[in-house]
């Protein structure tokens, strides 16, 4: 299960609308336990794939180092990532799978159809290494805004 508050969920989807027709990307900070990944904060990231931003995303490692440092300062961990699929289903692609290396983390994908956020799905990267990794459908529990 991916646990996320309503405001963060909506902010993630709004990010995809803002960058349309390009893909957005970001990082989910939080904590993990037996019940799943709990998002405490989302962090927007830049998409370095300016050559093919409509169907590719990449977060610069340097930016990721800073985000990991930020998480550490907050007592949080990187528990997942999000990105958008402009005019494409909210389903992981072969590219998403090939480039997924954070086992145990959630990969959230929002389909953005003609500029409007549509379906959002989460996939948990399971396994123990590159050879046996798999994406599993991961239900999303959206916390009620307070």
């Amino acid at each position, binding site marked *: 299960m991916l646990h996320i508050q309503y405001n963060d969920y909506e902010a993630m989807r709004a990010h995809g609308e803002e960058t349309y027709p390009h893909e957005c990307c970001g990082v989910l900070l939080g904590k993990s336990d037996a019940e799943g990944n709990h998002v405490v904060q989302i962090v927007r990231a830049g998409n370095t794939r300016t050559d*093919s931003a409509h169907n590719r995303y990449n977060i610069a490692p*340097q930016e*990721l180092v800073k985000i990991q440092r930020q998480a*550490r300062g907050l007592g949080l961990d990187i528990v997942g990532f999000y990105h958008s699929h402009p*005019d*494409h*289903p909210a389903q992981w692609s072969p590219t998403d799978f090939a*480039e997924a290396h954070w086992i145990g*983390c959630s990969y959230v994908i929002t389909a953005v159809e003609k500029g409007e956020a549509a379906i959002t799905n989460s996939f948990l990267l399971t396994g123990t290494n590159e050879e046996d990794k798999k994406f599993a459908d991961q239900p999303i529990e959206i916390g009620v805004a307070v």
Partner: protein
Amino acid sequence: MNIHIPTPLRAYTGGAETVSVPGTTVAEVFTALTTEYPELKQQLFNTEGKLRSFVNVYVNDEDLRYLPSKDATQVAATDELTIIPSIAGGSAVRASRNSLCCSCCPLL
């Protein structure tokens, strides 16, 4: 020196987010790291003993790949080494406006 471990690899460091190992070069540090935590070796290195392509290593704020001395780079106990797997992906193929999906989509 301190090494910051990303979440997916903490299963191999007993859950530790930061570990400290000795060494005066990056190579020595990695040898010490994988000696203390042997399961990390397969995660970080390929069968030829080279860092896997998606594993990024930063010495403080410098990408190891771009340091002139590579893994022979000298490090001090106060330096920090960060291991960070890459993050990338994307829909890869744009869907036609007349179809819901594409031939590469695992839904089909």
